[in-house]
């Protein structure tokens, strides 16, 4: 188990090698895009926010050829992912969920920080937010008398009061990683079970697992939901999936180069 875990999670690792190519002409239209849930970089307006393990940094990117570091907010060690939603910054950390205000976008201020009893580990404990709810996946390893166990979960926080997030629901998961949502459904990479887990979030006060909609996928790592399609990254490839209105997932293309 530990070995499998290690191999699977080494998706976070550095590595190398090169291959060959072919090419077509193209240029990028000016528009803002969508990040996966596992990232330490995000932009909003004239500012970019980045994470070091123990601080949030704010850059003024008005002139992209000369970004200027304008503020730093120190935190506990362990910041991992950033998600900006409706003028707030949500940070996934190995110690909890951070919520920051953007009343002054040049200098975000800390509104709240949840604390977990266990220290969760990993470089990939992301959070996404929709309406008044934050959906966060976490992983930890505990050692009970020499036996290592993983404890992983989806935690759902009610965040209508950003100074006081309240844990509303949690679901056990097997090594979750990235996640993304549509209006009605939340999709979570369950790397341990090699499944895309589906949750019905149409009523966020009563989120329901939908195992009937779960979709088997090899080593899912992170997700971008884009209208009626979803891109899922895996260790050395990615999948393009069609999303049906009933939440079910269909037709995949697999791309590795």
């Amino acid at each position, binding site marked *: 188990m530990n070995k499998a875990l290690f191999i699977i999670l080494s998706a976070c690792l550095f590595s190398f090698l090169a291959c060959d*190519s072919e090419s077509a002409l193209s240029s990028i239209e000016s528009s803002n*895009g969508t990040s996966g849930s596992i990232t330490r970089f995000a932009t909003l307006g004239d500012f970019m926010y980045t994470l070091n*393990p123990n601080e949030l940094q704010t850059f003024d990117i008005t002139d*992209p*050829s000369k*970004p200027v570091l304008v503020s730093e907010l120190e935190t506990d060690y362990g910041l991992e992912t950033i998600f900006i939603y409706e003028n707030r910054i949500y940070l996934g950390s190995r110690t909890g969920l951070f919520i920051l205000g953007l009343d002054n976008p040049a200098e975000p201020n800390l509104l709240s920080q949840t604390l977990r009893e266990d220290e969760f*580990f990993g470089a990939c404990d992301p959070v996404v937010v929709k309406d008044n709810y934050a959906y966060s996946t976490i992983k930890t390893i505990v050692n009970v008398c020499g036996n290592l166990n993983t404890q992983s979960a989806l935690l759902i926080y009610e965040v209508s009061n950003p100074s006081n997030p309240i844990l509303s629901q949690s679901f056990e998961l097997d090594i979750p990683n990235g996640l993304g949502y549509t209006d009605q459904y939340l999709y979570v990479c369950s790397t341990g079970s090699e499944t895309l887990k589906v949750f019905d979030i149409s009523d966020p006060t009563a989120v329901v697992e939908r195992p009937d909609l779960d979709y088997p996928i090899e080593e899912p790592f992170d997700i971008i939901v884009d209208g009626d399609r979803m891109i899922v990254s895996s*260790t050395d490839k*990615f999948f393009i999936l069609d999303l049906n209105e009933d939440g079910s997932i269909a037709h995949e293309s697999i791309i590795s180069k």
Partner: protein
Amino acid sequence: MRFTFSLIIASSLFLFSCHQEEYLAYSGMGKTPIYIPFSELDNIGSQAPQSIEQSGPIFLIGDFFFMVEAGKGIHVFDLSDVDQQNSIAFISIPAVTDFTIDDNILFADSWKDLVSIDISDIHNVVFLSRTTDVFDPFLFPQLFNGPFECVDENRGAVIGWEDKNLENVFCHTVN
């Protein structure tokens, strides 16, 4: 005493770690950093596509899909043609681990620095700027539990780790 303490920590919280600790000299299998000279950090530009080795952070703009290849750069795919969804370019960014894109500008880390790149023409991206010494890269192998050769920051930027038969190393990941 110190030795015992390290061992207890190392074995109690196995696997991944976010710290490194000095350790009694160790010889045997472990990890060693892969360096590039600092002079190579500015080798930023469009290249021919490459295969994905180890997927990293991802980003989508319209039909353009970007994926980090840690330490090396960013793959670019055009997803507009369902039957031809191949990589169209690779943006070389030495020592990269993460990035974002805003209005045709790609911002990424490159070792301790922030770089900005104009990607309006994906086949001829333009390296705009390097803001030095703003990031704290991990100086230990991620998701690895065990001994490793301590990073010597004078030797260059670390772009990855490889297995090696180590002699008398003093670093060990702990949690």
